[in-house]
């Protein structure tokens, strides 16, 4: 299609993939952390809460820089992961990691509010029916938190679609590999007269996010009506 350049379409496809993977992979961790923050009574709860919020507080460049320092192939962690065949640097997976981390605090917040709204009495009831903590979580807490999880996922997905600073710093901008929509938009904005191309990508990105939002509102409404 001529409306967008092939590179543009590639960026759209990649951004979708990156955002979806980031959201899907981060979600279980977000749920776990949200549960720990909502229900846990352990030492270091405050610290965990603070650490989770870090990506929100730090300028994205800093987050990207820290990721780079930790996950670069020559860095200890990066090297170890490399040995296991797990690559982040210059790979779309790295973009997903950055996007997931940046969206993480938003997911955790939404899910935590939802978990705090679940009646602990229902969990106690499940316990008396022979369910251990793990089963209680899976069969009672989690399903009842679903609307909040959906809200959190959409928030995370939207953030992932828009993430730029941390992504480009961490995994740079390799067309077809790590060039997400925001990177492509940024590139267009750096040259005089690139605003038109940028605008087209912005429209695509807005449409994608609106689709996700609409879907989530619909899911939440359906969930509420059941």
């Amino acid at each position, binding site marked *: 299609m001529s409306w967008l350049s092939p590179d543009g379409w590639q960026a759209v496809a990649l951004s979708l993939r990156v955002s979806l993977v980031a959201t899907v992979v981060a979600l279980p961790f977000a749920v776990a952390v949200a549960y720990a923050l909502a229900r846990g009574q352990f030492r270091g709860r405050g610290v965990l809460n603070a650490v989770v919020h870090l990506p929100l507080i730090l300028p994205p*460049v800093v987050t990207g*820089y820290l990721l*780079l*320092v930790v996950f*670069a*192939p*020559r*860095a200890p962690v*990066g090297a170890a992961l490399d040995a296991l065949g797990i690559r982040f*640097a*210059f790979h779309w997976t790295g973009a997903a990691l950055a996007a997931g981390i940046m969206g993480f605090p938003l997911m955790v917040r939404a899910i935590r509010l939802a978990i705090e709204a679940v009646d602990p009495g229902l969990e106690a009831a499940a316990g008396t029916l022979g369910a251990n903590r793990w089963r209680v979580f899976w069969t009672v807490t989690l399903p009842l938190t679903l609307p909040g999880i959906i809200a959190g996922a959409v928030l995370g997905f939207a953030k992932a679609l828009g993430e730029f600073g941390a992504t*480009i*710093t961490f*995994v*740079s*901008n*390799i067309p077809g590999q*790590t060039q997400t929509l925001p*990177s492509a938009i*940024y*590139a*267009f*904005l*750096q*040259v*005089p007269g*690139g605003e038109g191309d940028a605008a087209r990508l912005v429209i695509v990105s807005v449409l994608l996010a609106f689709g996700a939002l609409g879907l989530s509102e619909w899911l939440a409404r359906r969930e509420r009506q059941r």
Partner: protein
Amino acid sequence: EVTVFAASSMKTVLDRIIAGQDVRVSYAGSAALARQIIQGAPADLFISASPEWMDAVEAEGLVTERQDLLSNRLVLVSYDPAPPVDLRKFDILAALKGGKLAMGLVDAVPAGIYGKAALESLGQWEALAPHVAQVDNVRNALALVSSGAAPMGIVYATDAMAAPDIHVVGLFPKDSHPKIIYPVATLNDRPTTLAVLELLNSYKARKIFRAGGFEVLE
């Protein structure tokens, strides 16, 4: 008080030159600064890392006086120590050993645009293009190399000079790319503005620019 809008790569030297003066500098990407000036930002002077953005500002009729202030060189840097080579006869692809070559955005930021031109004229671009990791500014390219994420990168000589933990493999030949020019322009004729332009052209300033690795244009 004078407000200077300057490309962020100028920070080290410019901060030293204006030390003690009643001058504020807003450091950001040339594109952002140029757009802001076009939209009416209260800047008195603009130092751009790219002549194109200065052209854009000038086209709006905002420039009162323009001058090519500095020039720079492109260098190939590496994470691992390497002996200096002549880049005309150096196979960068082979030296990457499968790693990435860190550069600025090759269609967007000046260092990337110059770098791509240089590689093209050296006949290496075709082969290297798939192996280029582009970032939004030169400093991030440098960070990729100094963190070891990319074995090599193309950055300005000024950046390479100030980074102790990386190694300069070679200077790109001057004629391999369009001349790198940092234009400066005054955006009004206030005496204070002109004084700062004078300061930039002073002997002391030149000394600092040269010490920082820049080539001062007459």
